[in-house]
């Protein structure tokens, strides 16, 4: 059995990946404010975790201006989706005792 994904295992990053993979691959992604609300993280905390996930290639972060206001959108990459699916399978295997 593969081990846990050290990048995704952290609670906030786990919630981030859970939120992002709940969307279909062709959907736009979630904005920073929505992710903050879903994960319960602070601005700085979430930003640091998103950087970590981006460096691992698990998320794609897009920064743009909408009506002159900065908007950060985050989307799970195909690699991130696969890694999250493996991590969830690992957790389920622990519960199943295998």
């Amino acid at each position, binding site marked *: 059995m593969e*081990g*846990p994904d*050290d990048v995704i*295992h952290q*609670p906030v990053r*786990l*919630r981030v990946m*859970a*939120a992002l993979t*709940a*969307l279909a691959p062709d959907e736009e992604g*979630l904005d920073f404010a*929505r992710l903050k609300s*879903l*994960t319960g993280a602070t601005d700085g905390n979430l930003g640091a975790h998103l950087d970590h996930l981006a460096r691992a290639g698990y998320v794609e972060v897009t920064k743009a201006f909408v009506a002159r206001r900065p908007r950060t959108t985050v989307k799970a990459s195909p690699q991130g989706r696969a890694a999250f699916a493996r991590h*969830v399978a690992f*957790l*389920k295997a*622990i*519960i199943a*005792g295998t």
Partner: protein
Amino acid sequence: MTIRSDEAAAMLADVETVVARVKQSRIYCSAALCIILWGVVDLVRDILIAVGPRWFGPRWFLIDLIGVAGTLALLRNGASPVSRFPFRILAAFALFYAFGWIWSDLLGQFGPREEMAFWPTLFLFGYALAGLWFGAAFSVIGLGLTALILIGYFWSGEAFILWQAFVTGFGFMLCGLWMRRA
């Protein structure tokens, strides 16, 4: 790294909670646009009825058609876009209007004041029911605005049409904006 079974279960429960919240927020986001639209439709309709009761009073349904068409268009292009034409939504509208007409015009023969209270509360009843499946915000909106309409029906006197414009117009718009952030 060693993870105990109970820790793994807690993490998976966390994942499920987040996924459920994402799905609910997408429903709320789609619904919010429709609710804001109906706030605008209700406000325009009630103001038109207030300024031109003889012409707009019996023809309120024409203004509602704009709301129905707008709702269907929003659902096709919203936060959770539907891939096929939302026939069930159109059917739901038709059933609500048919049921409403049967009671307000055919069996009940409501007067203007009763009609003005009945129609929005009929649809708000649908919101209250929807909340049982799709999220409490719908029920809060349905029950809250119904209560305000009843207050206006009994106590607003001649200002009832303007009360309605305020409650269902601005009320829906504010509720839609609230729901977008929920």
